[in-house]
């Protein structure tokens, strides 16, 4: 370990303060509460809340939902990864951008869009009525089917991204080598291609499972009487039963962290990689015209289905308020919904709140995330791997749980709250967003620092540059793309955050997502849809720029 300068020591102190105050301490408070009865007495039996029949059924439902989500997402994601890698699809890059749209869409937007598309009063149902003069609700879209549909919609792109990046790394020569050694097509597929994909499939499965366990919006809106862990925690909290809420939260966290542990274990294992000169050859095996036409048609239809909910949202954002119950195809288009949002302070404030909170969350994660990465990678700080593990924990802690833990920890003044009761203030929201997203930024910074060849800094030193100059001119600019990319991701996640916001907001700190939800509650579809579209556009613009900066990121081969 190199000696730390006083600036670095200060940075380390800030990071340790943050880690303890906003991750360790809230989790301790949560566990303590889970063992406390409603009357305030501390007893192990309080935790039995987590094993009551309704809790057990909620746990089993959540697990079952996650398993189904993983299977469904895997099926679609892997299928498209395969098609896009090996078949000839027209406008390939266009369609491959389309099919990853859901991964960037805030979960609540997806939920609302599906609601408007498929529910009893949704677009499809209205269209059928309009065209065929059919009456009323032909089908209902709720419960398990609705939740699973939305989950698969939101999570299959993760499988697609993981598996297609693994497919891209497969050297076409290994496939040719297998054929030339006399292996059949199926033997080659199962013995050469699949083994190289398994690590990516495991990774995607674990991440989708965790995301599905933590999912709140879909079960919340469509769950009805079905119990799921996240929604049970929410209702227990709203009913004032902190103890039961905490017990369930601990349960959920244990399951999620178990999967995080598996994920970290799997990532630490070595993957197949051989370094050689030259570039791996990629092959397109779709020789047969029929197959290419089939998969192209399929891709076009599927891409249409992917953007359909978003177009529904766009369509409804131009429909006058209160038309949902009527036959809105007859109504004229209007910009009224948008002008209301931008015109009236009451409707515009949520935007300001969301933007401010997201920017603050980004600032906090950048300072803590980049600082930690710097100290771990560049300064080899003692115990750095423990610090990294603790700061990665929030990746496995669902938003509902973080919000609950924050409420329990910060509802009275302490050194971590700036000596005020933080609950109910503006600041608790960006703080929660920052903690939730810290792992993303820290990991992208760590890999950013790792990807810098140490000899660049050595070259700078040997030419007489100080540590500060080297960071400003060489290291800083080189990690910038990685940090910016992480920061934009944090921004996207924060601006549409709903899960922890719904537990932490007050009237004056309403965010866009809360406003969408409350407009929905009041059947103001037009307003909800316009908010949704604006939020969607903000996210897409940010994604566009983050992809641009990634493309521009540099490296000497």
């Amino acid at each position, binding site marked *: 370990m190199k000696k730390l300068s006083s600036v670095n020591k200060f940075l380390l102190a800030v990071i340790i303060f943050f880690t303890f105050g906003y991750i360790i301490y809230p989790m301790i408070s949560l566990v303590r509460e889970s063992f406390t009865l409603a009357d305030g007495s501390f007893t192990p039996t309080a935790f039995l809340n987590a094993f009551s029949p309704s809790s057990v059924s909620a746990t089993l439902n959540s697990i079952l939902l996650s398993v189904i989500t993983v299977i469904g997402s895997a099926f679609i994601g892997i299928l498209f990864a395969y098609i896009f890698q090996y078949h000839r699809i027209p406008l390939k890059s266009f369609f491959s951008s389309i099919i990853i749209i859901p991964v960037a869409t805030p979960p609540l937007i997806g939920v609302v869009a599906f609601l408007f598309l498929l529910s009893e009063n949704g677009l499809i149902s209205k269209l059928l009525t309009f065209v065929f003069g059919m009456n009323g609700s032909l089908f209902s879209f709720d419960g398990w089917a609705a939740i699973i549909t939305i989950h698969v919609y939101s999570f299959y792109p993760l499988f697609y991204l993981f598996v297609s990046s693994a497919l891209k790394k497969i050297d076409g020569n290994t496939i040719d080598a297998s054929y030339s050694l006399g292996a059949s097509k199926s033997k080659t597929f199962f013995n050469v291609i699949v083994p190289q994909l398994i690590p990516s499939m495991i990774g995607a499965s674990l991440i989708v499972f965790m995301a599905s366990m933590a999912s709140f919006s879909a079960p919340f809106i469509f769950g009805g009487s079905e119990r799921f862990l996240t929604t049970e925690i929410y209702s227990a909290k709203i009913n004032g039963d902190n103890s039961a809420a905490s017990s369930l939260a601990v349960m959920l966290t244990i399951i999620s962290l178990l999967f995080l542990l598996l994920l970290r274990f799997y990532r630490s294992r070595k993957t197949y990689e051989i370094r050689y000169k030259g570039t791996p050859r990629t092959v397109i095996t779709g020789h047969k015209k029929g197959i290419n036409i089939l998969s192209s048609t399929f891709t076009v239809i599927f891409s249409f289905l992917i953007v359909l909910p978003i177009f529904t949202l766009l369509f409804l954002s131009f429909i006058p308020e209160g038309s949902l119950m009527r036959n809105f195809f007859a109504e004229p288009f209007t910009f009224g919904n948008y002008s209301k949002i931008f015109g009236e302070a009451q409707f515009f404030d949520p935007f300001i709140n969301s933007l401010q909170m997201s920017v603050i969350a980004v600032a906090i994660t950048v300072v803590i995330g980049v600082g930690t990465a710097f100290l771990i990678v560049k300064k080899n700080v003692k115990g750095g791997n423990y610090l990294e593990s603790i700061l990665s924990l929030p990746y496995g802690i669902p938003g509902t749980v973080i919000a609950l833990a924050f409420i329990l920890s910060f509802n009275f003044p302490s050194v971590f709250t700036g000596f005020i009761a933080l609950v109910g203030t503006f600041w608790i929201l960006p703080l929660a967003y920052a903690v939730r997203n810290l792992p993303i930024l820290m990991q992208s910074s760590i890999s950013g620092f790792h990807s810098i060849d140490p000899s660049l800094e050595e070259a700078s030193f040997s030419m007489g540059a*100080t540590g500060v100059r080297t960071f400003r001119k060489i290291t800083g600019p080189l990690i910038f793309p990685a940090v910016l990319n992480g920061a934009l991701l944090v921004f996207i996640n924060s601006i549409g955050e709903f899960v922890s916001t719904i537990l932490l907001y007050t009237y004056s700190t309403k965010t866009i997502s809360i406003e969408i939800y409350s407009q929905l509650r009041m059947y103001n579809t037009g307003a909800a849809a316009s908010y949704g579209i604006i939020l969607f556009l903000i996210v897409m613009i940010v994604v566009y720029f983050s992809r641009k900066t990634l493309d521009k990121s540099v490296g000497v081969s």
Partner: protein
Amino acid sequence: MANLEIRNITKKFNDTEVLSDMNIDVRQGEFFSIVGPSGCGKTTLLRIIGGLEFPDSGKIIVNGKDITSLPPQKRKIGIVFQNYALFPNMTVYQNIAYGLEILKTDKSVLKNKINSVLDIVSLSHKTNNSVTSLSGGEQQRVSLARVIVTEPELILFDEPLSNLDYSLRIETRNELKRLQRDVGITSVYVTHDQTEALALSDRIAVLNKGVVQQTGSPYEVYYNPKNSFTASFIGHANLFDEKNSEQIFKINTGKNKVLALLPEEIILTKDDEEGKGKITDVQFTGFSIEYSIQIINSDRIIKTLCTTTSETEHLKTGDRVSLKISENNRDSNLRILDK
């Protein structure tokens, strides 16, 4: 320009001694190579000279001044890295300007210096290109220009040619020698390629297992190796133990000594009856033929080399041959070395 003294340098990583009590003198303006197999400690030694590692004991002295504990920033030693270490976020011009800006060089002087150094490495037409767009050979020249423009007292080269293709390597090697001679900066060059070291250097230090085996001019280390390691590493010499050299050449080496003969010093004649060796492989490389010969009644394989224009008859795999030491053996004294 400077002379460099390496005094009793010792370095351990964990419990393994990488360098033990190393002493080397590099003279002013000299092109000095440190050559040895991978893992011999040559890169560690280079990094210690550059201040990127610090020795456990011993001293690094430049121009009589002890710099052992100085950080790299204060050493005025330029380093050309194996992977060039060009700053990918900067252009060719900015890379070269980097060191000069640190020296607070006057703007107009800076521009002139950069232009003239770009001229020297023939890259004037790529001044404002991004370094990532350059070929390997061009990147190599930029990394050299970046170092010489700051006029360091010493330049360190860490296997700078190993990432280049064969023909480019030869070309860049010649270029490098020309530049070093023109600029005249004392240079320390680390490589595992003995041909490269022989071709480039004024003097060479042969390293093995953290110990200097021999220091001398290319001719000295090639023709007068001091031990069997140098003989086989530098000249690919064949080593014959006491029994073999007595049997084949009727030369008594004495106990625990070996006779070292370079591949081109052994003359083969076809002898189906009495021949002491049997040809197991023939490799034709154009200007020369390399024979692998198994000594009869032994599993010892030796290699010999003869030019294709020489008078010796061309032999085939399976031929029995007798072995003789060439009359042209340069110093006509036999190399009898410690095992």
